[in-house]
């Protein structure tokens, strides 16, 4: 296999709050290859979004990256100077956020915002910049792009706004786009459209995607490989279809079983007992142990991530369940 495009090793991001140190990301390692779509799954507070931000060095105070490495084509990003990071952001790695109504500036036309994103990396004439912007908008499926360039964000629907954000992210043809729950804030019908379009865009331009979501269904339809996070740590990794059919980690199994789509009619919905631990006060051993039905004394020591071919699991007692296929959105 060729060198991975992105190599994340032992990434740790902590938040210094008044109540203590919050370990949002606690030693996460994974690779992303060129053109690959990787899904990063977890519930709220699992650290998936912070991982995404950490890759681009966009963690706001009181958070900071306390350790680990993020290498893009072998070049280290953690601790890199501002100029180096700015050269990467928007040009080699882009990001799409969750809520397009807050990411686009309401008082600037989208043409202006796109021009700013272009000007950050290239010197272009007004005409050239405009045509690049029109081309990007057309590619994401916005009709009458030339005229819409002078419109303002509030004149677009939610789905269109997200398309604009995606267009901005793809303007400079990045090698990797980090997508942080980009469809969560949209109507279900639009969600499906955006998913299909992004998948096609990524394939056509050879861009790799890190698709961050709490929604297993969307991730499973997008990503070839899936990473599951819990309480700031990576607990399971592997090809999507296989992980969803034969999960190894009890948490993943519990998550899949609790999906309403998998419920047996007439029976109670399955739940994982207990709640996610506070990131201020993580248990000493395995973070999932308090809620795990398979836990024992061994789980008082933190388990390592054990690799087995394309799969990896962080558990002392991995399960070997065979499940029916999860309903995926196509």
């Amino acid at each position: 296999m060729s060198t991975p495009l992105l190599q994340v090793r032992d990434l740790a991001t902590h938040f210094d709050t008044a109540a203590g140190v919050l370990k949002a990301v606690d030693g996460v390692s994974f690779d992303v290859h060129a053109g690959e779509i990787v899904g990063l799954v977890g519930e709220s507070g699992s650290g998936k979004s912070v991982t995404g931000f950490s890759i681009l060095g966009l963690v706001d105070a009181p958070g900071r990256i306390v350790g680990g490495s993020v290498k893009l084509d072998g070049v280290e990003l953690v601790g890199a100077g501002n100029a180096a990071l700015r050269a990467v952001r928007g040009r080699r790695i882009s990001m799409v956020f969750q809520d397009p109504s807050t990411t686009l500036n309401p008082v600037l036309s989208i043409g202006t915002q796109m021009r700013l994103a272009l000007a950050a990396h290239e010197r272009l004439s007004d005409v050239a910049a405009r045509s690049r912007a029109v081309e990007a908008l057309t590619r994401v499926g916005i009709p009458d792009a030339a005229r819409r360039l002078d419109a303002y964000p509030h004149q677009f629907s939610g789905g269109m706004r997200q398309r604009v954000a995606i267009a901005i992210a793809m303007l400079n043809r990045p090698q990797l786009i980090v997508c942080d729950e980009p469809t969560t804030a949209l109507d279900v019908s639009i969600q499906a459209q955006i998913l299909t379009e992004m998948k096609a865009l990524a394939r056509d331009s050879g861009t790799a995607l890190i698709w961050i979501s709490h929604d297993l269904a969307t991730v499973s339809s997008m990503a070839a490989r899936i990473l599951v996070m819990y309480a700031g740590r990576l607990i399971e990794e592997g090809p999507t279809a296989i992980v969803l059919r034969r999960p190894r980690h009890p948490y993943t199994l519990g998550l899949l079983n609790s999906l309403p789509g998998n419920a047996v009619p007439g029976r109670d919905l399955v739940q994982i007992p207990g709640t996610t631990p506070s990131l201020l006060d993580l248990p000493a051993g395995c973070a999932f142990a308090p809620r795990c039905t398979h836990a024992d004394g061994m789980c008082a020591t933190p388990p390592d991530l054990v690799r087995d071919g394309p799969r990896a699991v962080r558990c002392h007692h991995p399960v070997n369940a065979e499940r029916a296929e999860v309903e995926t959105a196509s």
Partner: protein
Amino acid sequence: MTAKDATSPLGRFWVEFKESRTAVAALGVVGVIVLLAVLAPLIAPQNPYDLAKLVLMDARRPPGFVGSNGFTHWLGTDAQGRDLLSAILYGLRISIQVGLIAGAIAFIMGATLGATAAYFGGRIEALLMRIVDLQLSFPAILLALVLSAILGQGKWQLVAALVTAQYAYFARTTHGAAAAERSKDYVDAALSTPLSAARVVFRHILPNCLPPLIVVATIQIANAISLEATLSFLGLGLPVSEPSLGMLIANGFQYMLSGRYWISIYPGVALIVLIVAINLVGDQVRDQLNPRLKR
């Protein structure tokens, strides 16, 4: 004790407040000044209102001067021979009195008006708020100036002028907060229970309106004190028999040009310290209560 240990909202507020040394210091200063003002009749070396005790020969003397009655004037004397330290203490007393009373009345009037407008809605709300908005765009000082001129001099006339100039801020803040609250789901939920509407307003809506009101109140008290001083300086407001700090400063203005600075400067310093301290406290309160600054 960390923020998560304190249980009541007030307790949590205080813990966070303590983290700003400036704010705590300012609060301390305000406390000391208020204490001095309240105790003024007891601790002032001389009663500046007692005209009989004034020795004209001792007028305009510099700080540290020992008067003809063997009395040390630590801050000097003013044009009438009044001990400046005593005059300042009494002046602070009046300034704080007027500021607090005017602020309190404006608060009650304005908050009631704003809440009423928000409660009734519709045309009543539109009309009331239009009046408030119009008045807000008129500068407080002009209003106070003209009202003072029309009503004449006197403490209650001054309070009336100040209240008229300030109630609009409270009204608008209350209306804004109440209107935002009433559209929230919990109000619908509460109104659908057997609780009376008045109870909903007082027990549920108003407490949520308090944070911005507290911020406005702190600012407005400082403003009232400042406005009163300005009016007194211009010769309106309080009568000569009750010298406020503004009047002391005004009286001393002409002497400043000839080098006898203390008559104006010391009362001025006292006034500034009071207002700045109140504003510093208000600043910290405002930052703490601003939800958009929470990270």
